[in-house]
């Protein structure tokens, strides 16, 4: 029995190659994850990695397949997403009864300090985000 040869899309090959750079052997869970992400079967992913390791060994005689391909660079520390801590999303937990009425505008400036929202978008927002 001979299986039809799989034609991977460009995007699938890029993702497979990227994964191979970081890990030349996949655990069962990693293989499952990758298969789901790329809309491939686990068998397709498994065979691709087997073939890729064979190709790698031909180009790297004498090296063990477990050796990292490139040493992890200190410049590329993994940036995990910022945890959504429970921010104070309203002032209610800090609210004290206002000692003045906002309607009495003559008093506002003398006894209260206005708060300002600084536009942090330009600092925090990643560059070139696609706004669809």
């Amino acid at each position, binding site marked *: 029995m001979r299986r039809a040869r799989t034609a991977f899309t460009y995007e699938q090959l890029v993702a497979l190659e990227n994964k191979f750079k970081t890990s030349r052997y996949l655990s069962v869970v990693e293989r499952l994850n990758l298969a789901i992400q790329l809309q491939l079967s686990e068998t397709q992913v498994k065979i691709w990695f087997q073939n890729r390791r064979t190709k790698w060994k031909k180009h790297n005689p004498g090296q063990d397949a477990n050796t990292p391909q490139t040493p992890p660079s200190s410049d590329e520390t993994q940036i995990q997403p910022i945890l959504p801590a429970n921010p104070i999303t309203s*002032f209610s937990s800090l609210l004290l009864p206002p000692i003045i009425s906002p309607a009495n505008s003559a008093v506002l400036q003398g006894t209260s300090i206005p*708060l300002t929202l600084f536009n942090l978008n330009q600092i925090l*927002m990643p560059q070139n985000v696609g706004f669809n």
Partner: protein
Amino acid sequence: MHFSFIFLVLVYLTFAFGDSLICNNGFTVVNSNKCLKLFSSAVKHRTAEANCASYGGTLVNIRNSIDNRAVTQFVGNIGLSFWIGVYCLESNNPSSCYFDDDLGTDTAFNNFAKGFPNTDIGGCVYSATSGSLAGQWISSECDNVEMAYVCEIPMTRADSCAHNYNGYCYIMSHENSTSPILSFNDAYKSCQDNCANLVSIHSRRELSYIQGIYSPFNISSVTIGGLSTAPMAPYWSDLSH
């Protein structure tokens, strides 16, 4: 000391009884209670989050099995896996997962596949839409994986306002005033003259929305309707909580 800033007006829209809620900005009503939009181009998790924030939204939050089924069907025709608004800290402990809507983790609904969450893989989470795992949640690394994603914003009410969000209308002073830069007192009065208030901010999403509408402009600070009589004692000038 004289404060002189662009200010932001918040108008409370008046509604007739029975006005129905809608989705704007190209979002679609799903399950009668969610405004969703699918972005089928694959991106890293952080990029997906930032793009959702630009609409005043987050990655989609799935809070019950009905939502889960509705969202899966919403995406399912295309067969893409997609990022969802969940981040997990501990393997095999769904209660360690945070939802992007900041509504807490206790007794939260989850639909993780068997063996997940698995934070050895990564803290980010996606939903599969095809195969035996359709509708189930799976852990993923955040930085080396690109995926389609679904954004969620609040529903709002139909209105001609350009910045209509969550039932409120936002007007930037430089769009609607001959004097966009005013002292706090004058900004406050200008809002009152328009049957409005200086803005108060009540959620992370609302903050993202406000930052989003200012992002095209080179404006570094905006007066809002917050006041403080002492450190750690702020209150809103519209007396909301």
